[in-house]
């Protein structure tokens, strides 16, 4: 046992000596959380629009003022010709042009109906959709206020309610994803690289003839990374709680237990990679392409799985990160208990057992 602890201490020294990697390791989750918390939003704010007012009357001026003061838009340009719209979009200076038809106020007065044309630059389809929707809402709101004397007939009011995340903050989605990503990064990537390095440098032989048992070598290698992972998980949870006001709604014990399950899974993946590759670069490429990319893109972290074509959904469903993210979302954000995640937990546990079995077997084969 003494040998074992000595070995673990050596591993810790190895990790703490490489300051740059260490800083990045703690920097990534912090930077990511701050990025997603403050910068990455899809809400419409200060969208630059242009006005093409063929009517230039009292009513259109009022609507333009409303648009400008709504906070959603900045009126960047006033156009005088239809031809200018194309040039505006090509320069990318505005995202939408609001066109009022001639005699707008008059038509509204006499015929009770006037048209406004919203032309959006839909090369970014989702933003275009949101911007058009917001513009429509501002205009409808204007006309509803103008009509206060006689209420609009037969009006259907739709009341949206955003469950779990009423302010539509990006952090809600990114906390679980970041946690999963950083665990894969530390447990799978770093572990595999650190074991392969011993192989590449030839020091693995030295370890194998030492009084340590192979199992102890592997355990000694992974212990510091388990520790690092937990420190990172706790950093992320503290940040999300104190900086973004996102508390863990479910049980923290359950959350940590599930994290531990996922950590063991990622570690066994790392060991598996290290026993199937012989150079650091190969291990890095394998864990980057085989684990990092799928865990970011094919896990429901950023992109909803339902939108993907069937064959990609299959890849998502053999990707363990997918299940871990579902578990995290259910516990952290929805505040559900173990009963809601037992299926995912069972799948993860099964995968872990399988991978552990395969990787220890492979490791032994190499020793023989």
């Amino acid at each position, binding site marked *: 046992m003494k040998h074992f602890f000595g070995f673990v201490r050596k591993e810790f020294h190895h990790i703490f000596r*490489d300051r*740059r*990697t260490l800083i*990045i390791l703690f*920097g*990534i989750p912090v930077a990511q959380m701050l*990025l997603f918390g*403050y910068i*990455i*939003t*899809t*809400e419409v704010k200060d969208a630059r629009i242009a006005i093409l007012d063929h009517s230039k009357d009292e009513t259109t001026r009022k609507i333009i003022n409303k648009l400008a003061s709504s906070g959603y838009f900045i009126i960047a340009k006033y156009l005088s010709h239809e031809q200018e719209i194309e*040039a505006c979009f*090509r*320069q*990318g200076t505005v995202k939408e042009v609001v066109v009022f038809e001639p005699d707008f106020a008059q038509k*509204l007065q006499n*015929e*009770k109906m006037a048209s406004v044309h919203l*032309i959006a*630059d*839909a*090369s*970014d*389809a989702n933003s*275009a*959709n*949101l911007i058009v*929707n917001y*513009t*429509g809402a501002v*205009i409808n709101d204007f*006309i509803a206020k*103008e*009509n206060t004397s*006689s*209420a609009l*007939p*037969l*009006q*259907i*009011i*739709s*009341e*949206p309610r*955003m469950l*779990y*995340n009423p302010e539509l903050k*990006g952090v*809600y*989605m990114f906390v679980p994803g970041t946690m999963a990503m950083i665990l894969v990064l530390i447990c799978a990537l770093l572990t595999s690289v650190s074991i392969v390095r011993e192989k590449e440098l030839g020091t693995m032989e030295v370890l194998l003839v030492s009084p340590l048992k192979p199992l102890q070598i592997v355990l000694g290698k992974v212990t510091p990374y388990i520790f690092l992972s937990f420190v990172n998980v706790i950093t992320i949870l503290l940040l999300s709680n104190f900086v973004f006001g996102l508390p863990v709604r479910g049980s923290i014990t359950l959350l940590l237990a599930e994290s531990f399950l996922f950590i063991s899974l990622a570690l066994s993946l790392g060991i598996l990679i290290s026993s199937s590759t012989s150079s*650091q670069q190969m291990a*890095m490429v394998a864990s*980057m392409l085989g684990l990092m990319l799928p865990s970011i*893109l094919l896990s429901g972290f950023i*992109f909803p799985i339902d939108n*993907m074509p069937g064959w*990609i959904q299959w*890849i998502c469903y053999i990707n363990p990160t997918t299940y871990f993210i579902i578990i995290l*979302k259910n516990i952290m954000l929805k505040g559900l208990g173990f009963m809601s995640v037992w299926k995912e937990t069972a799948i993860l546990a099964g995968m872990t057992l399988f991978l552990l079995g395969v990787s220890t077997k492979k490791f032994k084969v190499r020793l023989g």
Partner: protein
Amino acid sequence: MMLPVIFIIPLVQLLILVNAANMEMKHIKICIMDNDLSSWSRLITGKFGNSKFFTVQSNTFSMEEARQQIENGRADMVLHIPPGFERNLVRENKAKTQLLFNAINGTVAGISNAYATQIIAGANREIIMEWYGNPKTQGGVAAINIIPSFWYNPDMNYKIFMVPAILVLLVTLIGMMLATLNIVREKEMGNIEQINVTPIRKIHFVTGKLLPFWIIALVMLAIGLLIGKLIYNIPMLGSLPLLFVVAGIYLLAMLGFGLMISNGAATQQQAMFVMFFFILIFIMMSGIFTPTDSMPHWAQTINYLNPVSYFMRIIRMILLKGSGFMDILRDFIILLCYGIAVITLAVFRYRKVS
């Protein structure tokens, strides 16, 4: 060995990433809770059923069940039409419908809400027309007819938005990552010492190291564009030579960054991590998924230093909107100065002695 990789990487990236990185809302799973069951409420639910954006997953009458559907992820949203909806609409001239969204993914919820609101507004117009016969005389109250039109992408196809972005990713990763790792590998292996004692001038060494990757990245871009055209039929409205000139300049900046990282890193692992960190931030801030306009001002200011954001903007403008040289002049000049500055600084800082 290298040749198949050059073809396979862009193909795989475009096939998997473009399909995976999809914010196109086509199958929003909706649970309908119609407690009114009147002809008008059926008109609304029917509209949701016919919409290409929504897939009706289930029908229920209890709120309990509807919420459970959201909780276990079987539905993304619930449309609740309360009892007495039609009666209220006629008697009080207004009636409410409630929409519940699973808003953990705020973007998806926001966009789903936008689509749902449009559908309900459309149904509302139909109901008014049905009731009054003529839309222009809706009980003497004025209304504004809002006509939206979506240029450059009337089908709201998210893929043509994503393909250029994936190409940027491809060029960046190949150009920067391969070049950096290549130099650091020489360092780690000790080969660099041998090169350092040869009479080769450092400018020649650096050019010799970077030029192949510069060329490979541009070739990748060409292949990627070809694949994008063949598989996704992305529009190419603007001038391709202009695009390649911009890409060449952009790569100068990214290769310069790569060189700087390799100057500082001792091992491949370190270089990899530092690069991963910067590329992640550069790409996330570049407007790859979210508009840069809605970022806070300080972030937009920082973004002036982010080369990826220039290229991301320009490639979309050229391909999707046919922007010409004069349209991108300002970004072009900034990127050019930036590229030259970074690469000069990086070469200057490179030391032949370790």
